[in-house]
């Protein structure tokens, strides 16, 4: 079996969610077959500047083939086109222009996929929203499998992606919420799809005491891991936590791990440690009482999965359907939608140690049942097997013609998004839980 992993950026230093996801999948699938990564020379997701040399290189034993990006992203043009397609009635041509402005525009990559697609059994395209996935999946034809990593934002409402969701051979979803959203927007119920997600290489023996000693942290604390950004809900987290700090009974501190784009509030119980390597990060998560996940938009929170893998409870933003759904399905985390709920949930977890412990245990079990690497690999391999047996359902739709591209008849993407169903997907059965005596129950 030979698989191509096509992703916008790739490398050991690239830490974006989808890119890391792609690297993990590539490295784990490489144990079962031949894997090659097709990507761009860019390392910065804002400019898509060609920072790495084109050609083939080995990254952790995986051959990585890089292609140059034709032009960098112009933020002004991209912003203008985004306003147009997200907020106004527009044409298909506008959406294609938006895609071109978003990047990473690499026709060389798409050409390579078009000419060499037959060399691979399957091409795994990561992140539906980028140029390489849209044109690459069309070029790969029936070999294209999409890992959409879709979030609940306006991009999902763009019309160009609906045929993409319908025409790929299969979709590997990150969560039931993502699947429901994509199926609602594109009606691709007949396209094979499975909720897979991604695993994580969590150390088996993290050193909590080492972390506390290294960073002089005492007492109970909640940890946030990730980019400290307003888009990640961190501003709201600061406001909520500062409110919690006013309660003299509360003892929790907040430890922030990651690069920051926001000013950190100055308070002795709010600590920012900056970007940490994986060892310190996992030590910190093991030392924490709980992980806070304030993000509004997640297709799958890898940090939350890592916290669960380490047996830590999670407090998530309930306005994010995916996180809320994961908390409910796993019984491993609480969620908040208001300030009162945030404080109430924190207090409940702080003052009821058994609750935090039980949530953490449930999280560990949830991770093992759903996101452990053997499970993930098995799901991918089963999908490949299934696709081998099934004939492709439909051919790729041709690109619209010149006139069709200029018809101003497409609704604003935000209007489309607003009509999509909301809320966590709770129809799926909950994972098996352990009884106090250690037995599993359905």
């Amino acid at each position, binding site marked *: 079996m030979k698989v191509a992993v096509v992703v916008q950026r790739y490398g050991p230093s690239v830490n974006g969610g989808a890119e890391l996801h792609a690297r993990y999948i590539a490295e784990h699938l490489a144990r079962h077959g031949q894997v090659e990564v097709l990507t761009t020379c860019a390392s910065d997701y804002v400019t898509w500047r060609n920072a790495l040399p084109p050609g083939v290189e080995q990254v952790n034993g995986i051959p990585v083939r890089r292609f140059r990006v034709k032009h960098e992203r112009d933020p002004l043009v991209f912003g203008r086109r985004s306003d147009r397609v997200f907020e*106004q*009635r527009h044409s298909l041509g506008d959406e294609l222009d938006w895609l071109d402005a978003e990047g990473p525009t690499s026709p060389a990559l798409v050409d390579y996929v078009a000419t060499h697609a037959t060399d691979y059994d399957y091409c795994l395209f990561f992140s539906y929203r980028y140029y390489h996935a849209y044109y690459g999946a069309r070029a790969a034809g029936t070999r294209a499998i999409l890992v959409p990593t879709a979030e609940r934002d306006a991009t999902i409402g763009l019309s160009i992606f609906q045929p993409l969701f319908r025409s790929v051979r299969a979709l590997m979803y990150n969560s039931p919420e993502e699947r429901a959203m994509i199926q609602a927007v594109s009606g691709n119920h007949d396209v094979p799809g499975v909720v897979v997600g991604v695993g994580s290489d969590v150390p088996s023996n993290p050193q909590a005491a080492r972390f506390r000693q290294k960073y002089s942290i005492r007492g109970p604390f909640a940890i946030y891991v990730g980019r400290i950004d307003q888009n990640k809900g961190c501003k709201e987290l600061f406001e909520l936590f500062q409110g919690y700090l006013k309660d003299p009974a509360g003892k929790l501190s907040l430890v922030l791990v990651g690069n920051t784009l926001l000013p950190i509030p100055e308070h002795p119980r709010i600590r920012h440690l900056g970007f940490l390597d994986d060892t310190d990060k996992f030590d910190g998560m093991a030392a924490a009482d709980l992980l806070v996940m304030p993000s509004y938009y997640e297709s799958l929170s890898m940090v939350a999965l890592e916290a669960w893998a380490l047996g830590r409870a999670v407090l998530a933003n309930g306005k994010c359907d995916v996180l809320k759904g994961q*908390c*409910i399905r*796993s*019984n*491993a*985390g*609480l*969620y908040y939608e208001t300030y*009162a*709920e945030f404080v*109430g*949930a924190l*207090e*409940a977890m702080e*003052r*009821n140690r*058994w*609750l935090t412990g*039980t*949530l953490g*245990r*449930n999280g560990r079990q949830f991770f093992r049942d759903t996101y452990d690497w053997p499970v993930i690999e098995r799901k991918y391999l089963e999908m490949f097997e299934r696709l081998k047996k099934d004939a492709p359902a439909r051919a790729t739709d041709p690109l619209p013609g010149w006139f069709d591209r*200029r*018809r*101003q008849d497409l609704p604003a993407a935000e209007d489309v998004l607003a009509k999509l169903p909301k809320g966590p997907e709770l129809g799926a059965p909950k994972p098996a*839980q*352990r*009884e*106090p005596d250690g037995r599993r*129950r359905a």
Partner: protein
Amino acid sequence: MPDFNVRSDSVNVEQIMEQIRARIREKRGVDYTEQQIHELATVKLEKFLDPKGVRSDLLEQFRKAQPAYEPPELPNFAFEESTLFESHRAPIRWMRKLLLPLLKLLFNPNPLIQALNIQARLNTMNAEREAKREGARRALDQLYYELIHNLVVETTRTGIEVKNLKMRLESISSRLEFNERRARALESAVVYKPSAEDVAVQRAPAPTVQHPRVMPTPPPSSRPMAPAPTPAPAGSGQAPAAAAPSTGPSGGTPGEGPGQRSRRRRRRRGRRGGGPAAGIMGAPGTGTTETGPTSTDAESGDAHAVAAEDVEIALGAESHPSEPIADSGPALAADAGHDLSTDSGHESSTGSGQGGSDPDAQ
């Protein structure tokens, strides 16, 4: 925060969240949506207005006075992609369609079409927004009216309550004063309770001037330094008052009780402030000339009975000190001398000054 009810290894996150929400509701009341708050406000207003009967139809009147709002139909145009090339004549329409590529070769009509289309939509949106805003404004007017109406009612009610509280305060202060006086009277009654011999001595000189409705009268014998009381002639109300300064020394006399001392102080204060007690009493001499004998007759001259009754009165039995002592002037003076007459006169004036504030009267 108390422990949760669910205590087992298998927790249900939704159940826990529900408990947390329930606790939040307990802490700060029910979480209402804006709509619920508005509904509650309306219901509360109606409930408040109806039972109290405070012009409860005002709101209805206001609603009736306001005509129903109908948004005006503003002119607008529809502008679609094909509007520019439309015609009711089919051949012209066909020609235009045919020549459209040529036209587009000469100039790009798309921006024009887009702009006019957007303008048409903007017009519609503006009209809708204006209508919504006007509707909201009218609803807000009603809300303000309700609010102001409620405020007026509440302010009135608060004013009445303040008045009530003031009156209650006056009543309580008058009761307090009464109680103080009663306590003083009791005190003197206990300290100067006459012995059997004193009573016997007292009975002889003043059999006719005793009055039952006076404050306790310490017998002259209980004050060794004071001269023996001389029976005052009936009708001469001035005599006791005039004799007062010569009654005894201003300092504490040996054997003199604290009640006497304080009485004397009050007497002096009374004199300084308002002249003779008789004057304050409103010419007791004139009034008492008529009533004196009557009361004297009623007493039948039993000093023992008088003393006992004095104590009873002092204990605050049935009559309030503020009651007018119609028959006490000369008799009192004659009985207890100027000392007591001044005292009772002072009390009487105080009592009549607050007569209207008798707590029982309210």
